[in-house]
Protein backbone atom coordinates (compact mmCIF):
# COMPACT_ATOMS: atom_id res chain seq x y z
CA UNK A 1 0.00 0.00 0.00
CA UNK A 2 1.31 3.40 -0.85
CA UNK A 3 0.46 5.59 2.09
CA UNK A 4 3.59 7.71 1.95
CA UNK A 5 1.94 10.68 0.32
CA UNK A 6 -1.49 12.08 1.01
CA UNK A 7 -2.98 14.81 -1.11
CA UNK A 8 -3.82 18.21 0.27
CA UNK A 9 -7.48 17.60 -0.51
CA UNK A 10 -7.55 14.33 1.44
CA UNK A 11 -5.84 15.89 4.42
CA UNK A 12 -8.33 18.70 4.45
CA UNK A 13 -11.21 16.22 4.34
CA UNK A 14 -9.69 14.23 7.19
CA UNK A 15 -9.07 17.39 9.22
CA UNK A 16 -12.71 18.38 8.75
CA UNK A 17 -13.87 14.97 9.95
CA UNK A 18 -11.66 15.20 13.04
CA UNK A 19 -12.87 18.70 13.81
CA UNK A 20 -16.55 17.81 13.34
CA UNK A 21 -16.56 14.49 15.13
CA UNK A 22 -14.02 14.93 17.89
CA UNK A 23 -12.77 18.46 18.51
CA UNK A 24 -16.33 19.78 18.58
CA UNK A 25 -17.14 17.15 21.18
CA UNK A 26 -14.52 18.66 23.48
CA UNK A 27 -11.51 16.47 22.72
CA UNK A 28 -8.26 18.37 23.42
CA UNK A 29 -6.13 16.91 20.69
CA UNK A 30 -6.47 14.27 17.95
CA UNK A 31 -3.55 12.77 16.06
CA UNK A 32 -3.45 10.32 13.20
CA UNK A 33 -0.15 8.49 12.98
CA UNK A 34 1.23 5.56 11.04
CA UNK A 35 2.76 2.53 12.72
CA UNK A 36 6.26 3.84 12.05
CA UNK A 37 5.58 6.84 14.27
CA UNK A 38 5.03 9.47 11.57
CA UNK A 39 2.32 12.04 12.02
CA UNK A 40 -0.25 12.09 9.25
CA UNK A 41 -2.21 14.94 10.76
CA UNK A 42 -2.74 16.54 14.14
CA UNK A 43 -5.61 18.70 15.24
CA UNK A 44 -6.21 20.39 18.59
CA UNK A 45 -8.66 22.75 20.26
CA UNK A 46 -6.18 25.61 20.07
CA UNK A 47 -5.37 25.48 23.77
CA UNK A 48 -3.44 22.30 24.34
CA UNK A 49 0.28 22.29 23.63
CA UNK A 50 1.45 18.73 23.31
CA UNK A 51 4.74 17.67 21.79
CA UNK A 52 2.98 15.68 19.08
CA UNK A 53 6.14 14.33 17.41
CA UNK A 54 7.44 12.63 20.55
CA UNK A 55 3.91 11.55 21.28
CA UNK A 56 3.61 9.86 17.88
CA UNK A 57 6.87 7.96 18.33
CA UNK A 58 5.85 6.72 21.77
CA UNK A 59 2.30 5.90 20.74
CA UNK A 60 3.45 3.81 17.78
CA UNK A 61 5.82 1.95 20.10
CA UNK A 62 3.11 1.50 22.70
CA UNK A 63 0.62 0.18 20.19
CA UNK A 64 3.13 -2.20 18.67
CA UNK A 65 3.99 -3.53 22.13
CA UNK A 66 0.36 -4.13 23.05
CA UNK A 67 -0.17 -5.81 19.68
CA UNK A 68 2.73 -8.17 20.37
CA UNK A 69 1.27 -8.94 23.82
CA UNK A 70 -2.10 -9.74 22.22
CA UNK A 71 -0.42 -12.27 19.94
CA UNK A 72 1.27 -13.88 22.95
CA UNK A 73 -2.07 -14.61 24.58
CA UNK A 74 -3.58 -15.79 21.32
CA UNK A 75 -5.64 -12.72 20.48
CA UNK A 76 -5.58 -11.21 17.01
CA UNK A 77 -5.49 -7.76 18.58
CA UNK A 78 -6.67 -5.73 21.57
CA UNK A 79 -9.04 -3.37 19.87
CA UNK A 80 -9.54 -0.98 22.77
CA UNK A 81 -6.55 0.81 24.20
CA UNK A 82 -7.27 3.45 26.76
CA UNK A 83 -5.16 5.22 29.39
CA UNK A 84 -6.97 6.96 32.22
CA UNK A 85 -5.48 9.76 34.28
CA UNK A 86 -6.71 12.25 36.90
CA UNK A 87 -7.24 15.11 34.47
CA UNK A 88 -6.65 13.70 31.03
CA UNK A 89 -7.12 10.45 29.18
CA UNK A 90 -5.81 8.94 25.99
CA UNK A 91 -7.76 6.70 23.66
CA UNK A 92 -6.13 4.72 20.83
CA UNK A 93 -8.01 3.23 17.94
CA UNK A 94 -6.78 1.42 14.88
CA UNK A 95 -7.99 2.82 11.55
CA UNK A 96 -6.39 0.05 9.47
CA UNK A 97 -3.18 -1.98 9.60
CA UNK A 98 -1.06 1.10 9.06
CA UNK A 99 -2.90 3.94 10.77
CA UNK A 100 -3.82 4.84 14.32
CA UNK A 101 -6.16 7.49 15.65
CA UNK A 102 -5.28 8.92 19.05
CA UNK A 103 -7.57 11.17 21.05
CA UNK A 104 -6.55 13.07 24.17
CA UNK A 105 -9.44 14.30 26.26
CA UNK A 106 -10.32 15.61 29.70
CA UNK A 107 -12.64 14.27 32.38
CA UNK A 108 -15.74 16.03 31.00
CA UNK A 109 -16.24 13.55 28.18
CA UNK A 110 -17.49 10.05 28.80
CA UNK A 111 -15.49 7.24 27.29
CA UNK A 112 -18.57 5.66 25.73
CA UNK A 113 -19.57 8.84 23.96
CA UNK A 114 -16.05 9.33 22.71
CA UNK A 115 -15.87 5.77 21.40
CA UNK A 116 -19.10 6.20 19.45
CA UNK A 117 -17.72 9.29 17.78
CA UNK A 118 -14.34 7.70 17.14
CA UNK A 119 -16.04 4.81 15.33
CA UNK A 120 -17.97 7.22 13.14
CA UNK A 121 -14.90 9.32 12.43
CA UNK A 122 -12.90 6.24 11.48
CA UNK A 123 -15.60 5.06 9.06
CA UNK A 124 -15.53 8.43 7.34
CA UNK A 125 -11.74 8.59 7.25
CA UNK A 126 -11.61 5.12 5.70
CA UNK A 127 -13.82 6.34 2.86
CA UNK A 128 -11.45 9.23 2.19
CA UNK A 129 -8.48 6.89 2.38
CA UNK A 130 -9.96 4.20 0.14
CA UNK A 131 -10.56 6.62 -2.70
CA UNK A 132 -6.84 7.41 -2.58
CA UNK A 133 -5.54 3.87 -2.78
CA UNK A 134 -7.88 2.70 -5.49
Amino acid at each position, binding site marked *: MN*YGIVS*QEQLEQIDTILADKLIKLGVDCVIIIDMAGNI*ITAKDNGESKY*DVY*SFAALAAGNFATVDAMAKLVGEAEFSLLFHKGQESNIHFSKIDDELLLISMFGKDISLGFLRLNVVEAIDQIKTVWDTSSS
Partner: protein
Amino acid sequence: MSFINLKDKVVQVKIVYYGPGRCGKTTNLEYINRKFRDQIQSEMVSLKTHGDRTLFFDFLPFDMGQIKGYDIKIQLYTVPGQVKYNATRKLVLKGVDGVVFVADAMEKQREKNIRSLNQLHENLQAYKESIFKIPLVIQYNKVDLKDHGVPVLPTAVLRKDLNSRLKVPDLEASAITGYNVAATLKKIISATVVSIQKKLL
Protein backbone atom coordinates in the same frame (compact mmCIF):
# COMPACT_ATOMS: atom_id res chain seq x y z
CA MET B 1 8.95 5.05 4.75
CA SER B 2 9.17 8.78 5.02
CA PHE B 3 5.88 10.56 5.29
CA ILE B 4 5.23 13.57 3.12
CA ASN B 5 2.52 16.03 4.01
CA LEU B 6 1.63 18.04 0.93
CA LYS B 7 -0.69 20.36 2.81
CA ASP B 8 1.75 21.60 5.42
CA LYS B 9 4.77 20.84 3.22
CA VAL B 10 6.50 18.68 5.78
CA VAL B 11 8.68 15.62 5.16
CA GLN B 12 9.30 13.29 8.10
CA VAL B 13 12.45 11.23 7.84
CA LYS B 14 13.21 8.31 10.16
CA ILE B 15 16.84 7.52 10.88
CA VAL B 16 17.74 4.65 13.19
CA TYR B 17 21.03 4.18 15.06
CA TYR B 18 21.68 0.46 15.18
CA GLY B 19 24.48 -1.56 16.75
CA PRO B 20 25.51 -4.00 19.49
CA GLY B 21 24.86 -3.32 23.17
CA ARG B 22 26.93 -0.55 24.79
CA CYS B 23 28.40 0.58 21.47
CA GLY B 24 27.32 4.20 21.97
CA LYS B 25 24.05 4.72 20.07
CA THR B 26 22.40 6.62 22.89
CA THR B 27 25.62 8.56 23.50
CA ASN B 28 25.51 9.70 19.85
CA LEU B 29 22.00 11.04 20.33
CA GLU B 30 22.82 12.65 23.66
CA TYR B 31 25.70 14.52 22.07
CA ILE B 32 23.51 15.69 19.18
CA ASN B 33 20.85 16.76 21.67
CA ARG B 34 23.38 18.94 23.55
CA LYS B 35 25.21 20.28 20.54
CA PHE B 36 22.21 21.22 18.41
CA ARG B 37 19.92 22.32 21.23
CA ASP B 38 18.85 25.45 19.26
CA GLN B 39 17.36 23.40 16.44
CA ILE B 40 15.59 20.94 18.71
CA GLN B 41 12.23 22.03 20.04
CA SER B 42 11.39 19.03 22.13
CA GLU B 43 13.07 16.94 24.75
CA MET B 44 14.86 13.74 23.94
CA VAL B 45 12.72 10.76 24.89
CA SER B 46 14.53 7.80 26.41
CA LEU B 47 12.86 4.57 27.43
CA LYS B 48 15.47 2.89 29.58
CA THR B 49 15.92 0.45 32.41
CA HIS B 50 17.06 1.39 35.90
CA GLY B 51 20.56 0.50 34.87
CA ASP B 52 20.45 3.16 32.12
CA ARG B 53 20.31 0.60 29.34
CA THR B 54 17.94 1.40 26.48
CA LEU B 55 14.79 -0.67 26.92
CA PHE B 56 12.78 0.31 23.88
CA PHE B 57 14.25 3.28 22.05
CA ASP B 58 15.54 6.84 22.33
CA PHE B 59 13.83 9.43 20.20
CA LEU B 60 15.12 12.82 19.14
CA PRO B 61 13.28 14.93 16.57
CA PHE B 62 14.80 18.02 15.00
CA ASP B 63 14.24 20.41 12.12
CA MET B 64 16.75 20.54 9.34
CA GLY B 65 15.39 23.56 7.50
CA GLN B 66 13.85 23.56 4.06
CA ILE B 67 14.53 21.81 0.79
CA LYS B 68 12.53 23.05 -2.19
CA GLY B 69 9.98 24.62 0.12
CA TYR B 70 9.48 21.49 2.22
CA ASP B 71 10.28 21.44 5.93
CA ILE B 72 12.47 18.46 6.67
CA LYS B 73 11.84 16.91 10.07
CA ILE B 74 14.48 14.40 11.01
CA GLN B 75 13.49 11.81 13.60
CA LEU B 76 16.42 10.03 15.18
CA TYR B 77 15.82 6.71 16.92
CA THR B 78 18.10 4.24 18.61
CA VAL B 79 17.39 0.56 19.14
CA PRO B 80 18.09 -1.38 22.32
CA GLY B 81 21.42 -3.11 21.74
CA GLN B 82 21.12 -6.05 24.10
CA VAL B 83 20.84 -9.38 22.31
CA LYS B 84 17.58 -10.38 24.02
CA TYR B 85 15.68 -7.34 22.72
CA ASN B 86 15.50 -8.23 19.05
CA ALA B 87 11.70 -8.06 18.97
CA THR B 88 11.80 -4.40 20.00
CA ARG B 89 14.70 -3.69 17.66
CA LYS B 90 12.55 -4.94 14.83
CA LEU B 91 9.64 -2.73 15.87
CA VAL B 92 11.81 0.38 15.86
CA LEU B 93 13.06 -0.42 12.35
CA LYS B 94 9.56 -0.22 10.93
CA GLY B 95 9.36 2.47 8.28
CA VAL B 96 13.06 3.33 8.52
CA ASP B 97 14.57 5.61 5.87
CA GLY B 98 18.23 5.52 6.83
CA VAL B 99 20.46 3.58 9.22
CA VAL B 100 23.65 4.44 11.11
CA PHE B 101 25.43 1.29 12.17
CA VAL B 102 27.48 2.09 15.24
CA ALA B 103 30.30 -0.42 15.67
CA ASP B 104 32.29 -0.79 18.86
CA ALA B 105 35.99 -0.49 18.02
CA MET B 106 37.09 -2.34 21.17
CA GLU B 107 38.95 -5.51 20.30
CA LYS B 108 36.79 -7.74 22.47
CA GLN B 109 33.60 -6.56 20.73
CA ARG B 110 34.70 -7.67 17.29
CA GLU B 111 32.36 -10.63 17.03
CA LYS B 112 29.39 -8.72 18.49
CA ASN B 113 29.67 -6.09 15.76
CA ILE B 114 29.51 -8.69 13.04
CA ARG B 115 26.60 -10.49 14.66
CA SER B 116 24.67 -7.26 15.09
CA LEU B 117 25.22 -6.24 11.47
CA ASN B 118 24.01 -9.65 10.30
CA GLN B 119 20.91 -9.27 12.41
CA LEU B 120 20.28 -5.81 10.95
CA HIS B 121 20.36 -7.46 7.54
CA GLU B 122 17.78 -10.04 8.65
CA ASN B 123 15.56 -7.50 10.39
CA LEU B 124 15.48 -5.25 7.33
CA GLN B 125 14.54 -8.22 5.18
CA ALA B 126 11.49 -8.74 7.38
CA TYR B 127 10.30 -5.31 6.15
CA LYS B 128 11.31 -6.11 2.55
CA GLU B 129 14.18 -3.66 2.77
CA SER B 130 17.73 -4.53 1.81
CA ILE B 131 20.86 -3.59 3.72
CA PHE B 132 22.51 -3.15 0.32
CA LYS B 133 19.96 -0.58 -0.81
CA ILE B 134 18.94 1.39 2.25
CA PRO B 135 20.98 4.54 3.02
CA LEU B 136 23.57 3.32 5.51
CA VAL B 137 26.59 4.86 7.25
CA ILE B 138 28.96 2.88 9.46
CA GLN B 139 30.57 4.55 12.45
CA TYR B 140 33.58 2.99 14.20
CA ASN B 141 32.97 4.37 17.66
CA LYS B 142 35.26 4.62 20.71
CA VAL B 143 38.51 5.27 18.81
CA ASP B 144 39.50 7.57 21.70
CA LEU B 145 39.98 4.49 23.89
CA LYS B 146 43.35 3.69 22.39
CA ASP B 147 44.70 6.79 24.13
CA HIS B 148 43.64 5.23 27.40
CA GLY B 149 45.42 1.95 26.78
CA VAL B 150 42.33 -0.08 25.82
CA PRO B 151 42.98 -2.46 22.91
CA VAL B 152 41.15 -1.07 19.90
CA LEU B 153 40.87 -2.67 16.48
CA PRO B 154 42.55 -0.79 13.62
CA THR B 155 40.01 0.83 11.31
CA ALA B 156 41.29 -1.30 8.42
CA VAL B 157 40.26 -4.44 10.31
CA LEU B 158 36.84 -3.04 11.23
CA ARG B 159 36.33 -1.99 7.64
CA LYS B 160 37.24 -5.46 6.40
CA ASP B 161 34.89 -7.07 8.94
CA LEU B 162 31.89 -4.83 8.37
CA ASN B 163 32.20 -2.84 5.20
CA SER B 164 34.03 -5.00 2.67
CA ARG B 165 30.82 -5.98 0.89
CA LEU B 166 28.56 -3.06 1.76
CA LYS B 167 31.03 -0.36 0.71
CA VAL B 168 29.05 2.42 2.36
CA PRO B 169 30.45 5.67 3.81
CA ASP B 170 32.23 4.93 7.08
CA LEU B 171 34.11 6.94 9.66
CA GLU B 172 35.91 6.76 12.96
CA ALA B 173 34.24 8.51 15.83
CA SER B 174 34.10 9.05 19.54
CA ALA B 175 30.54 9.66 20.65
CA ILE B 176 31.57 10.59 24.18
CA THR B 177 33.85 13.44 23.03
CA GLY B 178 31.71 14.28 20.01
CA TYR B 179 34.43 13.50 17.47
CA ASN B 180 32.74 12.85 14.08
CA VAL B 181 29.27 12.55 15.63
CA ALA B 182 27.97 15.50 13.63
CA ALA B 183 29.86 14.27 10.55
CA THR B 184 28.12 10.89 10.82
CA LEU B 185 24.76 12.58 11.14
CA LYS B 186 25.43 14.83 8.16
CA LYS B 187 26.41 11.85 6.00
CA ILE B 188 23.32 9.82 6.83
CA ILE B 189 20.96 12.77 6.41
CA SER B 190 22.30 13.65 2.99
CA ALA B 191 22.26 10.00 1.85
CA THR B 192 18.70 9.58 3.11
CA VAL B 193 17.35 12.79 1.63
CA VAL B 194 18.92 11.96 -1.75
CA SER B 195 17.35 8.48 -1.67
CA ILE B 196 13.92 9.92 -0.83
CA GLN B 197 14.24 12.41 -3.67
CA LYS B 198 15.13 9.58 -6.05
CA LYS B 199 12.13 7.53 -4.94
CA LEU B 200 9.82 10.45 -5.59
CA LEU B 201 11.13 11.38 -9.02
